[in-house]
């Protein structure tokens, strides 16, 4: 099963540290020291604030990802529990963006890269669970209120098992009220 990071609206304070953490992780820690035009500020998760909730939304790393299915150039693939975009292959057609029901994919400028007519090159951008970096997803690590968790197969499986057992116990008690 693919892993994914999910936010808990009860804990989130909407501070967007996760977004900054995401950029810092993906661009390397030196972004505070280098020319601002030399790096891309492309958070891979999006803070949503409505009247009654604040929470970041990011890729669910679906098991049957629509984004992967629609990509005409095979730039989206499954790797070690996550769905990743190969930005070298991506040509910014936005099909995946249109296909994703969560709005987890956006198009971002690739700093320093241009199209043939000199305009900015933009490619698809989404959570890659900090694929290839040590320490796991940066957003989870930097959240001041621990509102983000990495959901793994084991954890989800355990939770489901626990819930099933609870449901079974409850059903049993229904027919054996004396116990």
């Amino acid at each position, binding site marked *: 099963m693919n892993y994914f990071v999910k936010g*808990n*609206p009860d804990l989130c304070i909407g501070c967007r540290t996760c977004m900054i953490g995401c950029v810092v992780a993906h661009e390397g820690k030196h972004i505070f020291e280098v020319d601002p035009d030399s790096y891309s500020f492309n958070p891979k998760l999006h803070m949503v604030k409505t009247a009654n909730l604040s929470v970041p*939304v990011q890729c669910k790393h679906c098991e049957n990802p629509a984004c992967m299915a629609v990509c005409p150039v095979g730039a989206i693939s499954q790797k070690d529990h996550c769905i990743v975009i190969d930005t070298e292959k991506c040509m910014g057609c936005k099909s995946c963006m*249109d296909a994703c029901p969560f709005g987890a994919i956006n198009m971002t400028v690739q700093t320093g890269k241009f*199209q043939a007519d000199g305009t900015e*090159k933009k490619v698809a951008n989404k959570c890659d669970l900090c694929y290839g970096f040590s320490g796991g997803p940066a957003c989870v690590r930097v959240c001041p209120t621990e509102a983000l968790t990495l959901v793994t197969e084991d954890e989800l499986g355990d939770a489901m098992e626990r819930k099933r057992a609870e449901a079974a116990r409850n059903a049993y008690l229904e027919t054996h009220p004396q116990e």
Partner: protein
Amino acid sequence: MKKEIGSFVVGDSTKCTGCKACELACFTVHNRKSNHLGKTVGTVTVPVTPRLFLTKFEQGCMPIQCKHCEDAPCLNACTKGAISRIDHQVIVDAEKCIGCKDCMQACPFGAIALLPYARDGRLVGQAMSSEPKVFASKCDLCEGIEGGPACVRVCPHQALRLVDPEAEREEKNIRAAEALLLTKNWR
């Protein structure tokens, strides 16, 4: 200051009947001025050159048109500089196009066709050939045409949709966030 990306039109094969009203409307609005089209068929004197293409496949049909890619292969492939990005949209300059077919090969959607080029109600000819000049015909999102994409407007089944990708993404974000409210106690 705002970061923007290009809009595009997408078809919905579950609604499309394949009537080609979109193709005809596309041709009509794009040739209204350049080829003096009126409102009726009788005013047309040039071949129909749509910028989107009704496509049949095993399970149904739908129009296919340009996605206005943000790193557009057609644009990058065009050695003649006939394709450029104007107001976030990928636009072909038909006058500059020499019909080299590179853009067609680069486009993974087949969203470009080489079609006869007409001006002032007449096909444009070329020296040393009886064949008319052609141009790379692709969706320009009805740039400069009042009312926005004609295909979307004329579709009798609302099978075409103009996508504002960023706005739609934000809306989908909200729905996803609301789902998180329901799943927050997943453990």
